[in-house]
């Protein structure tokens, strides 16, 4: 009986923790916030990033002579998400980290159409968003 109570308690705590995490993760608000930084770039896509033991990865087709802006934000503020973008041969094409500084916004003018892999890591907090905008060059 005691063992059953203990199991119920553990499961309840796990559910409560999960719900707490989800409650702190309102991507809609973050999408709005990051979209607000697009300026003259047009909204393309948003990607939800949750804290995980491994990097969160999404793919996207970037096209030549297009300038992309990636705006990052999470529930503890800006600059707490790292992104590395790799081409289809897994070579690094961009990162938002330069000389130990992590930037919340990066722009990139693509010269090679292809599938790219955006690999995200949350440094702080548990929920983030990456909004991608574009403009033609």
């Amino acid at each position: 009986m005691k063992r059953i109570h203990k199991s119920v308690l553990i499961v309840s705590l796990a559910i409560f923790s999960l719900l707490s995490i989800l409650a702190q993760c309102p991507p809609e608000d973050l999408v709005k916030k990051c979209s607000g930084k697009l300026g003259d770039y047009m909204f393309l896509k948003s990607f939800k990033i949750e804290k995980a033991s491994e990097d969160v990865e999404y793919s996207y087709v970037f096209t030549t002579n297009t300038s992309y802006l990636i705006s990052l934000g999470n529930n503890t503020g800006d600059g707490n998400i790292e992104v590395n973008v790799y081409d289809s041969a897994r070579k690094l094409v961009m990162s938002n980290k330069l000389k130990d500084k992590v930037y919340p916004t990066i722009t990139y003018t693509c010269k090679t159409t292809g599938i790219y892999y955006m690999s995200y890591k949350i440094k702080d907090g548990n929920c983030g968003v990456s909004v991608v905008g574009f403009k033609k060059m």
Partner: protein
Amino acid sequence: MRLVLYSGSILMLLLSSGCGSSGEDKDGFSNIAKVDSTGKISAATSELAGQVIKSIPPPVELSAIIKNSGAEYFSDMLNETGNIDRYNTNYLKAANLGVYGADLGYINIYNHKEDALSFLNIVIKLSEELKVGQFFEFETIKRIADNSNNLDSMLNITQSNFEKMNNYLQEQNRSNISTYMLTGGWIEAMYLTTFVAIEKNDKALYEKIGEQKIVLDQIIILLDFYKNDQNALGLAKDLEALRGVFKEVKIETVYGEPTMVEENGMLVVKDNSKTTISITRETVDKIRESVSNIRKKITD
């Protein structure tokens, strides 16, 4: 809940296995039910499809290219709003929601407010019929359009609403609807782009059409998830034939190390790679004809 999304690996695996080929177990996903005999889509399929959908650029990117080429606005090329009554299956409704959505993006890019509101009405009607009408509220969007000098804000809000709709459809295990929307939208954008490219004999547009080869591969991967559905099967067959034409396009890339500098507090990345796309007017013409035939099947 899956926190880590290996979409890239999934795509690579599907591509390398020659997805859409005959071998049932060769794609490594035989343990994931794609579409069962009742046409129901599993959560796993919906999630995988959702990841591929995320990777595909929306049609508005091609519309922006058309406008950048200096082409004038062609309202005659758009799907007629009066055609809506013909669309009496979920497949036709979804595919044409994609078509009208692409047209709406094109109209917004060219800043034609009257047409935009007319097409927005059609988009809302089809969305409601597909039970995803909650993502478009006509009055709110109209107010946004009325309060701005150009339709950029309307464009951003409709783009964002389409994304929310796709996320919702994925959660509801209805990613097949998203897939048909996306395919319809891509076909419409390609229809407009190939028309303008040939009319203007614009070599830059030819190259843009050539690089769509990569997007087409992604769409064929998506349709493969629903190969038990006759609509998806028919569409995939037509797109496979189109892929045959795209084989004439050659894309070569030379990698160069990127350089990064800080400008106005923002990190600016310069891509030093170079791509060469080889495509002839004849190939573009063949692509146009094939796209036009597929579009006819969707819209007529």
